[in-house]
């Protein structure tokens, strides 16, 4: 299984600032995903990041607020821009391993963000 490292593991930020979260994978993967887990809620997909193309955002998430980079097959970043307290969540990176009709997604440990 893929080993995923996320940085930072947690941060406390001021309103109006931005935070960039890094996701490093120990093997080359085609598809990387960024999820948000708000307190007491389920995981919600923010966007899918494929190397060599623009990220695909889910309904309710926009590039200006959550810009994503995917410079190579082992690395991606998610930036949370112009933060407000409502952005306080756990942000998770995941990667998919697909073969045939089957797929498994593995998750990093997450970044716990608190916005004051």
């Amino acid at each position, binding site marked *: 299984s893929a080993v995923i490292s996320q940085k930072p593991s947690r941060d406390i930020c001021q309103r109006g600032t931005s935070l960039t979260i890094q996701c490093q994978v120990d093997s080359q993967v085609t598809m990387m995903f960024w999820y948000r887990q708000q307190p007491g809620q389920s995981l919600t997909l923010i966007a899918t990041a494929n190397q060599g193309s623009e990220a695909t955002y889910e309904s309710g998430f926009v590039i200006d607020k959550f810009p994503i980079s995917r410079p190579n097959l082992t690395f991606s970043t998610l930036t949370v821009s112009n933060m407000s307290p409502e952005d306080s969540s756990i942000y998770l990176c995941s990667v998919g391993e697909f073969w045939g009709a089957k797929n498994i997604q593995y998750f990093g440990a*997450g970044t716990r963000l608190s916005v004051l």
Partner: protein
Amino acid sequence: EDQVTQSPEALRLQEGESSSLNCSYTVSGLRGLFWYRQDPGKGPEFLFTLYSAGEEKEKERLKATLTKKESFLHITAPKPEDSATYLCADPPQGGSEKLVFGKGMKLTVNP
């Protein structure tokens, strides 16, 4: 709208007291039903994927089963270390590889 519903939302068991968690889904053309375990402060840990009705998979004290409308995670003789939040997830229609997650079920096993 694609939906995954888990019940109960929370469950408290005594060590050794077996039980089952339910996950119901509304997406037709199932392309896998996923179970994950999430410990506090950690990302979800993959447990199982089930692809067809009647399929079963086991891992230690856990067994996942699948019907056409729902999946069950059976926990046999649980131990305190089985305490965690258990999530199920389903890929939505349209061929996307993303996952739609249920809200999770927090299991507490008391010694």
